[in-house]
């Protein structure tokens, strides 16, 4: 390769490398540094406090609830999207009439912003007016089939193991009594956010799985069928192995989105009753841009970054290794 070509190549890519170097890596370093100071208020205060912000953050009730909420949200969203997405992909893959219409319907929420989704579902899942007893949204439909109304994202209930229950006492005996507390429970209000997020994201999993299923050559399926394999065996031994890498991709994408979720909760339920739908991203936003608690906001941001990195860096590194292989 001629030297000038190499110089041109570097000249083309250096601006982007510099931009990412400064705006991603440099700014992450800057944020990490802010998180080690006591900067609160509009003007930067540069007193170094070490990891004090992190220590107090993890002892803050709101942040503990936020971490719980993120875990609950992530597990439920991933489970719902994977089940629904895989199920719909398998059904569509069987060759149905009107497949294009179904696919279009399942996928269109992906083209919409979380803000629109949040506004629409906030109205759909609005509990109604408790003063007059008038119902709204889905609750009207529930009433029509004789079901009681739900409080949806305004429900302060936390489903958890009670310390006085049999399970709670058992946990206490083996030294895990701490698990029998609301801190380890499922906030009912979060289920509404999960429904809205599933509405938006499950089509993505469906599209991934459908693309993977379609990439299996028909000859392979036919060969298995001719060999006398049952439909179940065709799935078990021909189709499912081919979609395993897709499962990993879907988990990474859903996982990193749900760890960062912000717009949807902001538009739909905000913090919810007793922080029942609060998430670290919303806490960070409020602390930094409404409360001028920059050091606190930076610490939350770095915790979020670490959580997302734990999920994505192994994937990126293994991907890089895969790509260098001949």
């Amino acid at each position: 390769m001629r030297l000038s070509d190499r110089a041109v190549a570097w000249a083309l890519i250096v601006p982007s490398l510099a931009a990412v170097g400064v705006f991603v890596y440099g700014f992450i370093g800057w944020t990490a540094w802010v998180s080690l100071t006591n900067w609160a208020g509009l003007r930067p205060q540069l007193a170094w406090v070490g990891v004090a912000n992190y220590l107090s953050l993890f002892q803050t009730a709101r942040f503990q609830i936020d971490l719980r909420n993120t875990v609950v949200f992530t597990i439920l969203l991933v489970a719902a999207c994977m089940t629904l997405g895989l199920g719909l992909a398998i059904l569509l893959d069987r060759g149905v009439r009107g497949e294009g219409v179904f696919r279009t319907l399942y996928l269109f929420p992906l083209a919409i912003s979380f803000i629109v989704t949040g506004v629409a579902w906030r109205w759909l899942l609005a509990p109604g007016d408790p003063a007059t007893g008038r119902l709204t949204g889905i609750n009207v439909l529930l009433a029509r089939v004789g079901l009681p109304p739900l409080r949806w994202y305004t429900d302060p209930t936390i489903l958890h193991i009670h310390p006085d229950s049999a399970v709670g006492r058992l946990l206490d005996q083996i030294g895990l009594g701490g698990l029998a507390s609301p801190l380890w429970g499922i906030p009912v209000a979060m289920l509404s956010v999960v429904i809205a997020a599933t509405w938006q994201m499950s089509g993505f999993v469906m599209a991934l799985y459908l693309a993977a299923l379609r990439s299996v050559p028909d000859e392979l399926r036919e060969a298995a069928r001719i060999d006398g394999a049952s439909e179940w065996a065709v799935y078990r031994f021909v189709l499912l192995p081919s979609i395993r890498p897709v499962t990993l991709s879907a988990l990474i994408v859903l996982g990193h989105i749900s760890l960062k979720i912000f717009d949807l909760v902001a538009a739909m339920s905000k913090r919810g009753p007793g922080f029942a739908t609060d998430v670290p991203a919303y806490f960070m936003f409020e602390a930094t841009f409404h409360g001028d608690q920059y050091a606190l906001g930076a610490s939350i941001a770095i915790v979020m970054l670490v959580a997302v990195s734990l999920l994505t860096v192994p994937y990126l590194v293994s991907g890089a290794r895969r790509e260098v292989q001949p």
Partner: protein
Amino acid sequence: MAAGALGRALVYLPLLAAAAFYALPVYLLLITGLKSYAEAGLDRMWHLPSTVSLDSFRQAYRQLQPHVLNSVALTVPASVISSFVGSLNGFVLAKGRLRGSDLIFPLLLFGMFIPYQSILIPLVRTLQRVNALAEAVGVPPGLSGLVPGYGSIAGLAFVHIVYGIPITTLIFRNYYATIPDELVDAARVDGAGLLGIYGRVLLPLSLPAFAVVLIWQFTSIWNEFLFAVVLTQKPAVRPVTVALYNLAGSYIVEWNVQMAGALLAALPTLLVYILLGRYFLRGLLAGALRG
């Protein structure tokens, strides 16, 4: 053929139920938006409107129109510029034979996954400094809209271009990797330099990748909220997502207007999806199925 009918029902019933789930909010948005305020009472909220009224849409349009224009002014240039940046980067990484590409690529991709909260505070400070700098230099008032600083559409567009580098580079690099090296070598033998190879060989073949990246960036930037809400404090420069968020957050706005507003804010990306869904999907899958 009872078993066949049962089998078909087992396939179609869940598909139809799912279709109803996905269509439900749109049905409600549409029928609510088409009702007049008088008819939009709670008792009939799931009923079709008795007479179609466009008043709600008109009112929502009146309130959101400046913000829709802001979103256009933001999204179109940012998508076009970030597509070209991604195209050049992807070309260099796929065909530039740079030592270090294997290291550069994952380092770039990491920027795609970070929570933007982790760069937000420095970003605000830096863009504010750009404003201060522009003031110190004395940018003429006619050009101040072009200063990519804090609180301006140009600043927001700049941010989207920078943080779009990972995804646009990824899609172009993977696309250019599918183009045979022989083509590049042939051009090289003919005496073409790197820029010539890009301009005469790769760029003319890039249309499908440009379609994917343009649509992907258009949709992402149009729908973006976090940067928009943090970086645009003045109402006049707010994009449509922030305006809708504020519209829905104020108690005085009737919900038939909110629903109409939500539909209006979603319309451009929905149209892109309906007209160019194939490319939209390819961008979506490209982000997830690397390599």
